[in-house]
């Protein structure tokens, strides 16, 4: 079996590396766009107006309360009604962005709410406007809570992209399926793909640990 693994890697490494690259950028785009929209949703969620805030709350609950796979199918089935020529990859990307925006929104909200309320009171007592309080006092402190959580979210997203292989979008699990159908071997390419996932998630968590330690040192 180890001989098979080596042989398959020797022959198909290009496909695996392409899968790795696709997994990486799909997850990165999903997190990046998810962060932009997640921030907006978090701000809406924290609005003092109950009606507006509850719209964001409902959105977050729906996304977090349904399976990722269902959301993939939903956009894969739904989006072609609006955009008849849309690709599987685009549908999968939209689903991932929507999904991560909801999780990121909660991450950001938690990070902001973890800032000592006394900070806001001090800023209020100095006559700062609400916008300045957020921009200059709360967010700079919340970032320290939010960034590590966003890193974790990125690792989660890398693993979530595997579900998109149902639609053959070219990420790592798709690479597994391609190699499997070419070689009629399943376990060997699966082990290769598993090791690649492990490599990337472990690398990322270690980078994050170093980063967190640096931030703590600055505290």
């Amino acid at each position, binding site marked *: 079996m180890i001989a098979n693994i080596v042989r398959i890697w020797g022959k198909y490494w290009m496909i695996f590396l392409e899968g790795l690259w696709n997994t990486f950028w799909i997850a990165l785009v999903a997190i990046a766009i998810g962060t932009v929209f997640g921030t907006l949703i978090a701000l809406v969620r924290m609005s003092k107006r109950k009606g507006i805030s509850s719209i964001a709350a409902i959105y977050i609950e729906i996304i977090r309360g349904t399976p990722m796979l269902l959301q993939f199918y939903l956009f894969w089935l739904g989006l072609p009604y609006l955009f008849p020529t849309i690709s599987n990859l685009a549908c999968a990307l939209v689903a991932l962005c929507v999904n991560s925006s909801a999780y990121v929104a909660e991450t950001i909200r938690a990070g902001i709410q973890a800032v*000592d309320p*006394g*900070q806001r*009171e*001090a*800023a*209020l*007592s*100095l*006559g*700062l*406007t609400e916008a*300045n309080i957020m921009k*200059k*006092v709360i967010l*700079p*402190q919340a970032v320290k809570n939010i960034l590590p959580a966003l890193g974790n979210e990125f690792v989660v997203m890398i693993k979530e992209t595997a579900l998109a292989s149902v639609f053959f979008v070219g990420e790592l699990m798709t690479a597994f399926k391609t190699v499997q159908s070419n070689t009629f071997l399943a376990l060997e390419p699966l082990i290769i793909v598993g090791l690649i996932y492990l490599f990337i998630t472990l690398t990322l968590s270690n980078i994050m640990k170093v980063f967190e330690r640096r931030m703590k040192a600055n*505290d």
Partner: protein
Amino acid sequence: MTDQALIQLVDLHKYFGDLEVLKGINETIKEKEVISIIGPSGCGKSTLLRCMNLLETPTQGQVIFEGVNILDKKVDPTLHRRKMGMVFQHFNVFPHLNVLENITLAPILNKLMTKAAAEEKAIGLLERVGLGDKVYEYPRKLSGGQKQRLAIVRAMAMDPKVLLFDEPTSALDPEMVKGVLEVIKSLAITGMTTVIVTHEMGFAREVSDRVWFMYDGVIAEKGTPDDVFNHTKNPRAIEFLSQVL
């Protein structure tokens, strides 16, 4: 002390849910006056102070500051807060900014001063309170007493008409208390209108023009320090003072 009223509290009530914390406060604070608010914990003294700059919104009544009812819906409380400095029990200095930035943030953002003028003023104030060598330090490097002096300077940098102190020495180690009280005292005797919620009875007796003793949401006894500390007939005040003096 002058006779000009700076803050008038008119029939002030505050509820937290069903709990009535302030039960009708009617008082006038004059310019340059130093008022100490004392009383057992839970009597509403911090809430009363926080109602003055609307960190708490009174449920009923008026807060008239410089002749304007700042509870009026048409009034922007932000503009009035700029003239009312506040110092908190837990300092609430900004940990992500250095000492100088802590002080200049509000004057610059509120467009009261240029950056250069704000910094010059800040450094002058820091020297006055003995923090002249800490200008570029971050708060994590400061002791509790130094943080509180920084918080006082931060409030002073806005050129407030009144300083509100909410138990400014209660979170300090005992050896830090004196230095902070001396700074407050030096402000008070130079004519800064001061309202201070405090458990430091010696300080209240020595520095105040008037003392309010609060009990159960009302000002149960008030007068000069001599009236309150030596001649009160109020049984609650007598009981409280016998415990703390």
